[in-house]
Protein backbone atom coordinates (compact mmCIF):
# COMPACT_ATOMS: atom_id res chain seq x y z
CA UNK A 1 0.00 0.00 0.00
CA UNK A 2 2.99 2.24 0.50
CA UNK A 3 4.08 2.10 -3.14
CA UNK A 4 5.25 5.60 -4.11
CA UNK A 5 3.12 7.19 -6.81
CA UNK A 6 6.02 7.59 -9.22
CA UNK A 7 6.98 3.91 -9.25
CA UNK A 8 3.49 2.53 -9.82
CA UNK A 9 3.43 2.95 -13.61
CA UNK A 10 6.75 1.09 -14.03
CA UNK A 11 5.80 -1.97 -11.97
CA UNK A 12 3.43 -3.64 -14.41
CA UNK A 13 5.64 -3.62 -17.53
CA UNK A 14 8.66 -4.61 -15.44
CA UNK A 15 6.83 -7.52 -13.84
CA UNK A 16 5.48 -8.63 -17.21
CA UNK A 17 8.95 -8.58 -18.79
CA UNK A 18 10.48 -10.53 -15.89
CA UNK A 19 7.69 -13.11 -15.89
CA UNK A 20 8.01 -13.50 -19.65
CA UNK A 21 11.78 -13.92 -19.45
CA UNK A 22 11.48 -16.47 -16.64
CA UNK A 23 8.78 -18.45 -18.48
CA UNK A 24 10.79 -18.55 -21.73
CA UNK A 25 13.98 -19.63 -19.92
CA UNK A 26 12.48 -22.14 -17.50
CA UNK A 27 10.11 -23.82 -19.93
CA UNK A 28 12.79 -23.76 -22.63
CA UNK A 29 10.27 -22.55 -25.20
CA UNK A 30 11.41 -22.80 -28.81
CA UNK A 31 9.32 -20.51 -30.98
CA UNK A 32 9.31 -18.72 -34.32
CA UNK A 33 7.26 -15.88 -32.94
CA UNK A 34 8.51 -15.24 -29.41
CA UNK A 35 11.88 -14.56 -27.85
CA UNK A 36 12.88 -13.75 -24.27
CA UNK A 37 13.32 -10.02 -23.57
CA UNK A 38 17.06 -10.44 -22.98
CA UNK A 39 17.51 -11.89 -26.49
CA UNK A 40 15.41 -9.07 -27.91
CA UNK A 41 17.63 -6.54 -26.14
CA UNK A 42 20.73 -8.22 -27.56
CA UNK A 43 19.26 -8.24 -31.08
CA UNK A 44 18.33 -4.58 -30.70
CA UNK A 45 21.87 -3.70 -29.61
CA UNK A 46 23.27 -5.74 -32.51
CA UNK A 47 21.03 -4.08 -35.10
CA UNK A 48 21.85 -0.67 -33.66
CA UNK A 49 25.61 -1.23 -33.73
CA UNK A 50 25.77 -2.57 -37.30
CA UNK A 51 23.78 0.43 -38.48
CA UNK A 52 21.03 -1.50 -40.27
CA UNK A 53 18.39 -0.27 -37.84
CA UNK A 54 19.48 3.34 -38.18
CA UNK A 55 19.46 3.17 -41.99
CA UNK A 56 15.96 1.70 -41.90
CA UNK A 57 14.81 4.39 -39.47
CA UNK A 58 16.25 7.09 -41.72
CA UNK A 59 14.44 5.67 -44.76
CA UNK A 60 11.13 5.42 -42.95
CA UNK A 61 11.31 8.86 -41.38
CA UNK A 62 12.47 10.46 -44.64
CA UNK A 63 9.47 9.04 -46.51
CA UNK A 64 7.10 9.89 -43.69
CA UNK A 65 8.27 13.50 -43.47
CA UNK A 66 8.42 14.00 -47.23
CA UNK A 67 4.86 12.70 -47.44
CA UNK A 68 3.84 14.92 -44.54
CA UNK A 69 5.37 17.95 -46.25
CA UNK A 70 3.67 17.17 -49.55
CA UNK A 71 0.25 16.24 -48.16
CA UNK A 72 0.40 18.89 -45.46
CA UNK A 73 1.16 21.64 -48.00
CA UNK A 74 -1.76 20.58 -50.19
CA UNK A 75 -4.05 20.31 -47.17
CA UNK A 76 -2.92 23.68 -45.85
CA UNK A 77 -3.48 25.56 -49.10
CA UNK A 78 -6.86 23.92 -49.72
CA UNK A 79 -7.88 24.34 -46.08
CA UNK A 80 -7.10 28.07 -46.10
CA UNK A 81 -8.92 28.55 -49.40
CA UNK A 82 -11.95 26.60 -48.20
CA UNK A 83 -11.96 28.37 -44.84
CA UNK A 84 -11.82 31.83 -46.41
CA UNK A 85 -14.41 31.32 -49.12
CA UNK A 86 -17.81 29.95 -48.14
CA UNK A 87 -18.74 29.60 -51.82
CA UNK A 88 -15.70 27.51 -52.66
CA UNK A 89 -16.23 25.44 -49.51
CA UNK A 90 -19.84 24.61 -50.37
CA UNK A 91 -19.04 23.86 -53.99
CA UNK A 92 -16.27 21.39 -53.12
CA UNK A 93 -18.25 19.62 -50.38
CA UNK A 94 -19.41 16.58 -52.34
CA UNK A 95 -16.04 16.08 -54.02
CA UNK A 96 -14.19 16.10 -50.70
CA UNK A 97 -16.74 13.84 -49.04
CA UNK A 98 -16.36 11.40 -51.91
CA UNK A 99 -12.55 11.22 -51.94
CA UNK A 100 -11.77 11.46 -48.22
CA UNK A 101 -13.16 8.10 -47.04
CA UNK A 102 -10.91 6.13 -49.42
CA UNK A 103 -8.53 4.27 -47.09
CA UNK A 104 -4.96 5.30 -47.89
CA UNK A 105 -3.71 1.74 -48.30
CA UNK A 106 -6.30 1.17 -51.04
CA UNK A 107 -4.20 3.50 -53.18
CA UNK A 108 -1.20 1.22 -52.70
CA UNK A 109 -1.77 -0.80 -55.89
CA UNK A 110 -2.39 2.35 -57.95
CA UNK A 111 0.80 3.94 -56.64
CA UNK A 112 2.59 0.66 -57.27
CA UNK A 113 1.80 0.48 -60.98
CA UNK A 114 2.19 4.23 -61.52
CA UNK A 115 5.38 4.82 -59.53
CA UNK A 116 6.92 1.41 -58.87
CA UNK A 117 8.61 0.37 -55.63
CA UNK A 118 10.60 2.90 -53.65
CA UNK A 119 10.40 6.28 -51.98
CA UNK A 120 8.11 8.00 -54.48
CA UNK A 121 5.27 5.53 -54.09
CA UNK A 122 5.47 5.62 -50.32
CA UNK A 123 5.60 9.42 -50.25
CA UNK A 124 2.53 9.64 -52.49
CA UNK A 125 0.47 7.41 -50.19
CA UNK A 126 1.65 9.12 -47.01
CA UNK A 127 0.87 12.44 -48.69
CA UNK A 128 -2.68 11.37 -49.52
CA UNK A 129 -3.25 10.29 -45.92
CA UNK A 130 -1.86 13.57 -44.53
CA UNK A 131 -3.96 15.88 -46.72
CA UNK A 132 -7.21 15.24 -44.85
CA UNK A 133 -6.48 15.97 -41.20
CA UNK A 134 -4.61 19.14 -42.19
CA UNK A 135 -7.33 20.22 -44.61
CA UNK A 136 -10.21 19.65 -42.19
CA UNK A 137 -8.55 21.27 -39.19
CA UNK A 138 -7.13 24.22 -41.14
CA UNK A 139 -10.53 24.86 -42.68
CA UNK A 140 -12.13 24.86 -39.23
CA UNK A 141 -9.36 27.05 -37.77
CA UNK A 142 -9.55 29.61 -40.58
CA UNK A 143 -13.35 29.58 -40.52
CA UNK A 144 -13.27 30.23 -36.78
CA UNK A 145 -11.04 33.29 -36.91
CA UNK A 146 -12.47 36.29 -35.09
CA UNK A 147 -14.43 38.12 -37.83
CA UNK A 148 -13.15 41.49 -36.65
CA UNK A 149 -9.62 40.51 -37.71
CA UNK A 150 -10.90 39.96 -41.24
CA UNK A 151 -12.67 43.34 -41.05
CA UNK A 152 -9.42 44.97 -39.99
CA UNK A 153 -7.72 43.41 -43.00
CA UNK A 154 -10.45 44.81 -45.22
CA UNK A 155 -10.18 48.29 -43.70
CA UNK A 156 -6.41 48.23 -44.18
CA UNK A 157 -6.98 47.24 -47.82
CA UNK A 158 -4.56 44.35 -47.55
CA UNK A 159 -4.19 42.30 -50.70
CA UNK A 160 -5.50 38.72 -50.60
CA UNK A 161 -1.96 37.37 -50.21
CA UNK A 162 -1.11 39.78 -47.39
CA UNK A 163 -4.40 38.98 -45.72
CA UNK A 164 -3.47 35.30 -45.61
CA UNK A 165 0.13 35.95 -44.61
CA UNK A 166 -0.39 38.62 -41.95
CA UNK A 167 -3.79 37.84 -40.47
CA UNK A 168 -5.09 34.37 -41.30
CA UNK A 169 -2.03 32.19 -40.79
CA UNK A 170 -0.88 33.80 -37.52
CA UNK A 171 -4.41 33.67 -36.09
CA UNK A 172 -4.92 30.03 -37.03
CA UNK A 173 -1.34 28.90 -36.36
CA UNK A 174 -1.83 27.01 -33.05
CA UNK A 175 -4.52 24.80 -34.52
CA UNK A 176 -2.63 24.39 -37.79
CA UNK A 177 0.34 23.14 -35.78
CA UNK A 178 -1.94 20.75 -33.93
CA UNK A 179 -3.17 19.46 -37.30
CA UNK A 180 0.41 18.88 -38.44
CA UNK A 181 1.22 17.11 -35.19
CA UNK A 182 -1.64 14.67 -35.66
CA UNK A 183 -0.73 14.27 -39.33
CA UNK A 184 2.87 13.43 -38.36
CA UNK A 185 1.61 10.51 -36.28
CA UNK A 186 -0.51 9.36 -39.20
CA UNK A 187 2.45 9.75 -41.58
CA UNK A 188 4.61 7.39 -39.51
CA UNK A 189 1.80 4.84 -39.23
CA UNK A 190 1.06 4.91 -42.95
CA UNK A 191 4.75 4.75 -43.88
CA UNK A 192 5.32 1.66 -41.71
CA UNK A 193 2.12 0.08 -43.02
CA UNK A 194 3.10 0.61 -46.65
CA UNK A 195 6.52 -0.88 -45.96
CA UNK A 196 5.04 -3.92 -44.26
CA UNK A 197 2.48 -4.45 -47.00
CA UNK A 198 4.66 -4.07 -50.05
CA UNK A 199 7.52 -1.60 -50.16
CA UNK A 200 11.00 -3.13 -49.61
CA UNK A 201 12.27 -0.17 -47.61
CA UNK A 202 12.73 1.06 -44.07
CA UNK A 203 11.56 -0.28 -40.71
CA UNK A 204 8.45 -2.05 -42.00
CA UNK A 205 10.47 -4.03 -44.52
CA UNK A 206 13.06 -4.74 -41.83
CA UNK A 207 10.52 -6.30 -39.49
CA UNK A 208 9.02 -8.35 -42.33
CA UNK A 209 12.47 -9.62 -43.32
CA UNK A 210 13.23 -10.57 -39.72
CA UNK A 211 9.95 -12.48 -39.55
CA UNK A 212 10.61 -14.33 -42.78
CA UNK A 213 14.15 -15.16 -41.67
CA UNK A 214 12.62 -16.77 -38.54
CA UNK A 215 14.46 -14.39 -36.24
CA UNK A 216 11.82 -13.64 -33.59
CA UNK A 217 14.37 -11.79 -31.44
CA UNK A 218 15.21 -9.40 -34.27
CA UNK A 219 11.55 -9.06 -35.24
CA UNK A 220 10.56 -8.09 -31.70
CA UNK A 221 13.56 -5.77 -31.50
CA UNK A 222 12.23 -3.99 -34.60
CA UNK A 223 8.78 -3.86 -33.02
CA UNK A 224 10.20 -2.27 -29.86
CA UNK A 225 12.22 0.17 -31.94
CA UNK A 226 9.20 1.16 -34.03
CA UNK A 227 7.31 1.77 -30.79
CA UNK A 228 10.17 3.88 -29.44
CA UNK A 229 10.28 5.88 -32.68
CA UNK A 230 6.55 6.55 -32.51
CA UNK A 231 6.79 7.54 -28.87
CA UNK A 232 9.76 9.87 -29.43
CA UNK A 233 8.09 11.55 -32.39
CA UNK A 234 4.92 12.07 -30.38
CA UNK A 235 6.80 13.43 -27.37
CA UNK A 236 8.99 15.74 -29.44
CA UNK A 237 5.98 17.23 -31.20
CA UNK A 238 4.04 17.63 -27.95
CA UNK A 239 7.00 19.44 -26.40
CA UNK A 240 7.36 21.66 -29.45
CA UNK A 241 3.68 22.52 -29.30
CA UNK A 242 3.78 23.36 -25.60
CA UNK A 243 6.87 25.55 -25.88
CA UNK A 244 5.63 27.31 -29.01
CA UNK A 245 2.03 27.92 -28.08
CA UNK A 246 1.75 27.32 -24.34
CA UNK A 247 -0.36 24.80 -22.51
CA UNK A 248 -3.64 26.09 -23.92
CA UNK A 249 -2.81 24.65 -27.33
CA UNK A 250 -2.35 21.13 -25.95
CA UNK A 251 -5.49 21.25 -23.84
CA UNK A 252 -7.42 22.16 -26.98
CA UNK A 253 -6.69 18.63 -28.30
CA UNK A 254 -10.21 17.41 -27.75
CA UNK A 255 -11.60 19.85 -30.29
Amino acid at each position, binding site marked *: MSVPERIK*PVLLPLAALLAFEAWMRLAGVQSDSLAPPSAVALALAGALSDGSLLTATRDTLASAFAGLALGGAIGLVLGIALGLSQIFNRLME*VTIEAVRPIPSVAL*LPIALIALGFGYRMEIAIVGFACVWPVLIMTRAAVGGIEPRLIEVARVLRLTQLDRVRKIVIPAALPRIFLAFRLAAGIALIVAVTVEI*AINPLGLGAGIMTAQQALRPDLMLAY*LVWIGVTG*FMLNTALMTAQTTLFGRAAVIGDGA
Partner: protein
Amino acid sequence: MRWSVIGWRLASFVVAAGLIALWQVAADQRLVSPVFLPGPDRAWASLMRGFTSGDLLAKLMGTLTHMAYGWLLASIGGVALGAMIGSSKAMRSYVAPTLELLRPLPVSAIIPVAIAALGLSQGMALFVIAFGSVWPMLLGTIHGFAAVEPRLYEVARVLHMSRLAVILKIALPSAAPDILAGMRLSLTVALILAVVCEMLAGLDGLGQWVLLSARAFRSADLFAGVMLLGLIGYVTALAMGAAESRLLRWQAARR
Protein backbone atom coordinates in the same frame (compact mmCIF):
# COMPACT_ATOMS: atom_id res chain seq x y z
CA MET B 1 -33.19 28.59 -45.85
CA ARG B 2 -33.87 24.93 -46.67
CA TRP B 3 -33.96 25.69 -50.37
CA SER B 4 -30.59 27.37 -50.30
CA VAL B 5 -29.10 24.31 -48.57
CA ILE B 6 -30.49 22.05 -51.29
CA GLY B 7 -29.30 24.51 -53.95
CA TRP B 8 -25.75 24.51 -52.64
CA ARG B 9 -25.80 20.74 -52.39
CA LEU B 10 -26.90 20.51 -56.03
CA ALA B 11 -24.22 22.96 -57.11
CA SER B 12 -21.68 20.90 -55.22
CA PHE B 13 -22.82 17.76 -57.03
CA VAL B 14 -22.47 19.61 -60.33
CA VAL B 15 -18.86 20.49 -59.44
CA ALA B 16 -18.15 16.84 -58.61
CA ALA B 17 -19.75 15.77 -61.89
CA GLY B 18 -17.63 18.35 -63.70
CA LEU B 19 -14.47 16.92 -62.15
CA ILE B 20 -15.50 13.41 -63.21
CA ALA B 21 -16.11 14.74 -66.73
CA LEU B 22 -12.62 16.26 -66.65
CA TRP B 23 -11.25 12.86 -65.62
CA GLN B 24 -13.12 11.32 -68.57
CA VAL B 25 -11.65 13.87 -70.98
CA ALA B 26 -8.15 13.33 -69.57
CA ALA B 27 -8.54 9.58 -70.03
CA ASP B 28 -9.99 9.92 -73.54
CA GLN B 29 -7.23 12.25 -74.65
CA ARG B 30 -4.71 9.78 -73.23
CA LEU B 31 -3.03 12.50 -71.18
CA VAL B 32 -2.13 9.71 -68.77
CA SER B 33 -1.50 6.22 -70.04
CA PRO B 34 -4.70 4.12 -69.80
CA VAL B 35 -2.63 1.45 -68.08
CA PHE B 36 -2.54 3.69 -64.99
CA LEU B 37 -5.68 5.73 -65.38
CA PRO B 38 -8.84 4.23 -66.83
CA GLY B 39 -11.67 6.61 -67.61
CA PRO B 40 -14.64 6.69 -65.24
CA ASP B 41 -16.69 4.92 -67.91
CA ARG B 42 -14.35 1.92 -67.95
CA ALA B 43 -14.10 1.84 -64.15
CA TRP B 44 -17.88 1.95 -63.86
CA ALA B 45 -18.33 -0.77 -66.48
CA SER B 46 -15.81 -2.89 -64.65
CA LEU B 47 -17.66 -2.32 -61.38
CA MET B 48 -20.95 -3.41 -62.92
CA ARG B 49 -19.37 -6.39 -64.62
CA GLY B 50 -17.71 -7.40 -61.38
CA PHE B 51 -21.06 -7.43 -59.62
CA THR B 52 -23.10 -9.17 -62.29
CA SER B 53 -20.70 -11.81 -63.56
CA GLY B 54 -17.59 -11.60 -61.39
CA ASP B 55 -16.94 -12.23 -57.74
CA LEU B 56 -16.71 -8.61 -56.67
CA LEU B 57 -19.69 -9.04 -54.36
CA ALA B 58 -17.97 -11.94 -52.60
CA LYS B 59 -14.82 -9.82 -52.19
CA LEU B 60 -16.88 -6.94 -50.81
CA MET B 61 -18.55 -9.26 -48.32
CA GLY B 62 -15.15 -10.70 -47.41
CA THR B 63 -13.74 -7.30 -46.50
CA LEU B 64 -16.91 -6.32 -44.63
CA THR B 65 -16.83 -9.58 -42.67
CA HIS B 66 -13.18 -9.19 -41.66
CA MET B 67 -13.80 -5.62 -40.66
CA ALA B 68 -17.01 -6.33 -38.74
CA TYR B 69 -15.70 -9.32 -36.76
CA GLY B 70 -12.47 -7.59 -35.80
CA TRP B 71 -14.24 -4.38 -34.90
CA LEU B 72 -16.96 -6.07 -32.84
CA LEU B 73 -14.39 -8.15 -30.98
CA ALA B 74 -12.40 -5.00 -30.28
CA SER B 75 -15.53 -3.12 -29.19
CA ILE B 76 -16.52 -5.75 -26.65
CA GLY B 77 -12.99 -6.31 -25.42
CA GLY B 78 -12.10 -2.62 -25.38
CA VAL B 79 -15.13 -1.50 -23.44
CA ALA B 80 -14.94 -4.42 -20.98
CA LEU B 81 -11.22 -3.92 -20.33
CA GLY B 82 -11.63 -0.17 -20.23
CA ALA B 83 -14.45 -0.47 -17.71
CA MET B 84 -12.34 -2.76 -15.55
CA ILE B 85 -9.35 -0.43 -15.61
CA GLY B 86 -11.31 2.81 -15.52
CA SER B 87 -13.53 1.93 -12.59
CA SER B 88 -10.67 1.25 -10.22
CA LYS B 89 -8.29 3.92 -9.08
CA ALA B 90 -5.54 1.41 -8.36
CA MET B 91 -5.80 -0.13 -11.85
CA ARG B 92 -5.72 3.34 -13.37
CA SER B 93 -2.47 4.30 -11.71
CA TYR B 94 -0.78 0.94 -12.41
CA VAL B 95 -2.01 0.09 -15.91
CA ALA B 96 -3.02 3.30 -17.69
CA PRO B 97 0.54 4.72 -18.10
CA THR B 98 1.65 1.52 -19.85
CA LEU B 99 -1.28 1.82 -22.24
CA GLU B 100 -0.47 5.47 -22.94
CA LEU B 101 3.10 4.40 -23.69
CA LEU B 102 1.89 1.81 -26.20
CA ARG B 103 -0.56 4.12 -27.92
CA PRO B 104 1.79 5.85 -30.43
CA LEU B 105 2.99 2.43 -31.68
CA PRO B 106 2.00 2.09 -35.34
CA VAL B 107 -0.36 -0.86 -34.96
CA SER B 108 0.48 -2.35 -38.35
CA ALA B 109 3.89 -3.24 -36.87
CA ILE B 110 2.11 -6.05 -35.03
CA ILE B 111 1.30 -7.76 -38.36
CA PRO B 112 4.65 -9.60 -38.75
CA VAL B 113 4.42 -10.84 -35.18
CA ALA B 114 0.88 -12.05 -35.82
CA ILE B 115 2.00 -13.77 -39.02
CA ALA B 116 4.81 -15.52 -37.16
CA ALA B 117 2.45 -16.70 -34.43
CA LEU B 118 -0.71 -17.49 -36.38
CA GLY B 119 0.40 -17.89 -40.00
CA LEU B 120 -1.26 -16.32 -43.04
CA SER B 121 -4.74 -17.13 -41.85
CA GLN B 122 -8.14 -15.67 -41.05
CA GLY B 123 -7.22 -15.84 -37.39
CA MET B 124 -4.22 -13.62 -38.03
CA ALA B 125 -6.39 -11.02 -39.78
CA LEU B 126 -8.95 -11.14 -36.99
CA PHE B 127 -6.27 -10.69 -34.33
CA VAL B 128 -4.56 -7.81 -36.15
CA ILE B 129 -7.81 -5.95 -36.84
CA ALA B 130 -9.05 -6.42 -33.29
CA PHE B 131 -5.70 -5.46 -31.77
CA GLY B 132 -5.44 -2.36 -33.93
CA SER B 133 -8.95 -1.09 -33.36
CA VAL B 134 -9.10 -1.82 -29.64
CA TRP B 135 -6.93 1.17 -28.65
CA PRO B 136 -9.25 4.11 -29.35
CA MET B 137 -12.10 2.33 -27.55
CA LEU B 138 -9.99 1.18 -24.62
CA LEU B 139 -8.48 4.60 -24.00
CA GLY B 140 -11.81 6.31 -24.68
CA THR B 141 -13.53 4.13 -22.09
CA ILE B 142 -10.82 4.69 -19.48
CA HIS B 143 -10.93 8.41 -20.09
CA GLY B 144 -14.72 8.47 -19.98
CA PHE B 145 -14.80 6.54 -16.71
CA ALA B 146 -12.23 8.84 -15.15
CA ALA B 147 -14.29 11.90 -16.09
CA VAL B 148 -17.57 10.79 -14.54
CA GLU B 149 -19.08 13.45 -12.29
CA PRO B 150 -17.93 12.43 -8.75
CA ARG B 151 -21.30 13.28 -7.22
CA LEU B 152 -22.89 10.48 -9.24
CA TYR B 153 -20.54 8.03 -7.51
CA GLU B 154 -21.57 9.50 -4.17
CA VAL B 155 -25.22 8.96 -5.03
CA ALA B 156 -24.41 5.36 -5.92
CA ARG B 157 -22.72 4.85 -2.56
CA VAL B 158 -25.69 6.27 -0.72
CA LEU B 159 -28.00 3.94 -2.65
CA HIS B 160 -25.72 0.96 -1.84
CA MET B 161 -25.37 0.02 -5.49
CA SER B 162 -23.06 -2.87 -6.36
CA ARG B 163 -19.93 -2.19 -8.44
CA LEU B 164 -21.49 -3.82 -11.50
CA ALA B 165 -24.61 -1.69 -11.13
CA VAL B 166 -22.48 1.42 -10.81
CA ILE B 167 -20.66 0.54 -14.02
CA LEU B 168 -23.81 -0.32 -15.97
CA LYS B 169 -26.10 2.42 -14.69
CA ILE B 170 -23.79 5.35 -14.09
CA ALA B 171 -20.32 5.06 -15.55
CA LEU B 172 -21.11 3.52 -18.95
CA PRO B 173 -23.88 5.98 -19.88
CA SER B 174 -21.86 9.00 -18.88
CA ALA B 175 -18.76 7.68 -20.68
CA ALA B 176 -20.83 6.93 -23.80
CA PRO B 177 -19.66 9.97 -25.83
CA ASP B 178 -15.99 9.03 -25.35
CA ILE B 179 -16.66 5.36 -26.11
CA LEU B 180 -18.63 6.14 -29.26
CA ALA B 181 -15.97 8.57 -30.47
CA GLY B 182 -13.44 5.76 -29.99
CA MET B 183 -15.64 3.34 -31.92
CA ARG B 184 -15.86 5.78 -34.83
CA LEU B 185 -12.06 6.12 -34.97
CA SER B 186 -11.70 2.35 -34.78
CA LEU B 187 -13.88 1.81 -37.84
CA THR B 188 -11.31 3.57 -40.03
CA VAL B 189 -8.47 1.61 -38.44
CA ALA B 190 -10.37 -1.66 -38.94
CA LEU B 191 -10.94 -0.97 -42.64
CA ILE B 192 -7.28 -0.10 -43.26
CA LEU B 193 -6.00 -3.15 -41.40
CA ALA B 194 -8.52 -5.42 -43.14
CA VAL B 195 -7.20 -4.26 -46.52
CA VAL B 196 -3.56 -4.70 -45.50
CA CYS B 197 -4.16 -8.18 -44.08
CA GLU B 198 -6.00 -9.25 -47.21
CA MET B 199 -3.10 -8.01 -49.34
CA LEU B 200 -0.49 -9.80 -47.25
CA ALA B 201 -2.29 -13.04 -46.54
CA GLY B 202 -4.21 -13.31 -49.81
CA LEU B 203 -7.50 -13.59 -47.93
CA ASP B 204 -10.71 -13.20 -49.90
CA GLY B 205 -11.49 -9.50 -49.95
CA LEU B 206 -11.12 -6.20 -51.74
CA GLY B 207 -7.52 -5.76 -50.57
CA GLN B 208 -6.52 -8.91 -52.43
CA TRP B 209 -8.71 -7.87 -55.40
CA VAL B 210 -7.03 -4.48 -55.89
CA LEU B 211 -3.54 -5.93 -55.49
CA LEU B 212 -4.15 -8.74 -58.00
CA SER B 213 -5.76 -6.29 -60.43
CA ALA B 214 -2.69 -4.07 -60.18
CA ARG B 215 -0.32 -7.00 -60.72
CA ALA B 216 -2.26 -7.94 -63.86
CA PHE B 217 -2.40 -4.26 -64.96
CA ARG B 218 -6.21 -4.40 -65.04
CA SER B 219 -6.55 -0.77 -63.99
CA ALA B 220 -10.33 -0.59 -64.52
CA ASP B 221 -10.87 -3.44 -62.03
CA LEU B 222 -8.39 -1.78 -59.69
CA PHE B 223 -10.27 1.53 -59.73
CA ALA B 224 -13.57 -0.29 -59.26
CA GLY B 225 -12.15 -1.90 -56.11
CA VAL B 226 -10.79 1.40 -54.80
CA MET B 227 -14.17 3.06 -55.38
CA LEU B 228 -15.87 0.29 -53.42
CA LEU B 229 -13.39 0.68 -50.56
CA GLY B 230 -14.12 4.41 -50.48
CA LEU B 231 -17.82 3.58 -50.41
CA ILE B 232 -17.32 1.24 -47.43
CA GLY B 233 -15.46 3.98 -45.60
CA TYR B 234 -18.18 6.50 -46.39
CA VAL B 235 -21.16 4.33 -45.50
CA THR B 236 -19.70 2.98 -42.25
CA ALA B 237 -18.76 6.49 -41.10
CA LEU B 238 -22.26 7.70 -41.98
CA ALA B 239 -23.93 4.82 -40.12
CA MET B 240 -21.71 5.34 -37.09
CA GLY B 241 -22.51 9.05 -37.07
CA ALA B 242 -26.24 8.32 -37.21
CA ALA B 243 -25.98 5.74 -34.43
CA GLU B 244 -23.95 8.15 -32.36
CA SER B 245 -26.42 11.02 -32.58
CA ARG B 246 -29.31 8.65 -31.86
CA LEU B 247 -27.65 7.05 -28.84
CA LEU B 248 -26.60 10.39 -27.43
CA ARG B 249 -29.93 12.12 -27.98
CA TRP B 250 -30.76 12.01 -24.25
CA GLN B 251 -27.54 13.85 -23.51
CA ALA B 252 -28.17 16.61 -26.01
CA ALA B 253 -31.58 17.10 -24.41
CA ARG B 254 -30.08 17.35 -20.94
CA ARG B 255 -27.61 20.05 -21.87
